[in-house]
């Protein structure tokens, strides 16, 4: 499975959840598959989906799901110890690990070679690290939400992008409707 197929499959689970989604094609795919006010689309700032989501989770009680990528997490590796040492029960980080930089043309990342993100997350202090294959994402995500236990999920899948239109929504609109969903 490629990322967009996983997103389509977990869309019913993501409904009405607070989602922070990684820059580029992941946000475009999520937007096309299931736009909702509680989605925060990153239009820039590679690497910070996990940090923004953690910040939202630490500031309030609702479950927050960050959808990130392996290349993006590698850009901001310091995020893993920060999560490991401060992870609240309402935070789930999904790292879609397709071993490539999807938004720039699927150049390989190091996780497609020797680097093991699950091992890095565990070593960074993340208590609840789950590594799953693409087809098992839905049940694993639902279990993480139900458990109400801070979770880092690494989802191994194939590289590849669906062709989706760019997001033309104004960033302030994205922020405002997301904040209303957080407060609602």
């Amino acid at each position, binding site marked *: 499975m490629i990322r967009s197929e996983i997103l389509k499959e977990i869309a019913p689970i993501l409904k009405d959840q607070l989602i*922070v989604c990684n820059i580029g094609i992941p946000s475009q795919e999520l937007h096309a598959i299931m736009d909702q006010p509680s989605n*925060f689309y*990153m*239009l*820039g*700032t590679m*690497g*910070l*989906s*996990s*940090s*923004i*989501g*953690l*910040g*939202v*989770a*630490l*500031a*309030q009680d609702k479950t*927050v799901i960050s959808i990130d990528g392996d290349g993006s997490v590698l850009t*901001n590796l*310091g*995020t893993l*110890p*920060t999560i490991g040492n*401060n992870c609240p029960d309402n935070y789930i980080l999904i790292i879609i690990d397709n071993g490539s930089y999807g938004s720039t043309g699927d150049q390989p990342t190091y996780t497609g070679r020797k680097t093991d993100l699950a091992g890095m997350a565990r070593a960074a202090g993340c208590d609840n690290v789950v590594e799953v294959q693409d087809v098992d994402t839905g049940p694993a995500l639902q279990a993480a939400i139900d458990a109400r236990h801070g979770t880092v999920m690494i989802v191994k899948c194939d590289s590849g992008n669906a062709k989706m239109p760019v997001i033309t929504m104004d*960033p*302030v609109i*994205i*922020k405002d409707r*997301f*904040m209303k969903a*957080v*407060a609602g």
Partner: protein
Amino acid sequence: MNLDKKITDDLVANDVSFVTTVPCKQLAGVIEEIDQRKEIFHIPSNKEDEGMGLCAGAFMGGKRSAIIMQNTAIGVTINTLATLTQFYRMPLPMIISYRGELREPVACQVEMAVHTKALLAQMHIPTYHFHWQKDVEEFDNILKYTFMCNKPVAILTDANFWGGYGDQ
């Protein structure tokens, strides 16, 4: 005047309850003070742009946030300031140690100092320079201004403000 206490008191009075920091010799006292206040959640960051991500999230989660960092960080956070904090119009007080100004003993620090204000001006970031201890009296107004206009605002605090470096 206890600057660390004054700065922290003003943050609390303005309902800033989420602060991220990277280590800094000059700002160590403020960081320690913030860490002790129950009104403020303190989360150390590994890198300043990571901290700005945390602050953006906390703000959207309903908490007023602030970042404490060094002026060298301006060099590594330009993209985050432009494409996250400014693009989505989020308020962010940035309490910045301004190394490389008067009373600086380390020559290398001057290299970034000479670029700091120009970069902030280029980014259209409102900037305040605390040189004398009495300048801290403006801090409360600066915080109110920041949350009024939803912008990142820089407060540069130089060595003179902090009392120099002791034996120089």
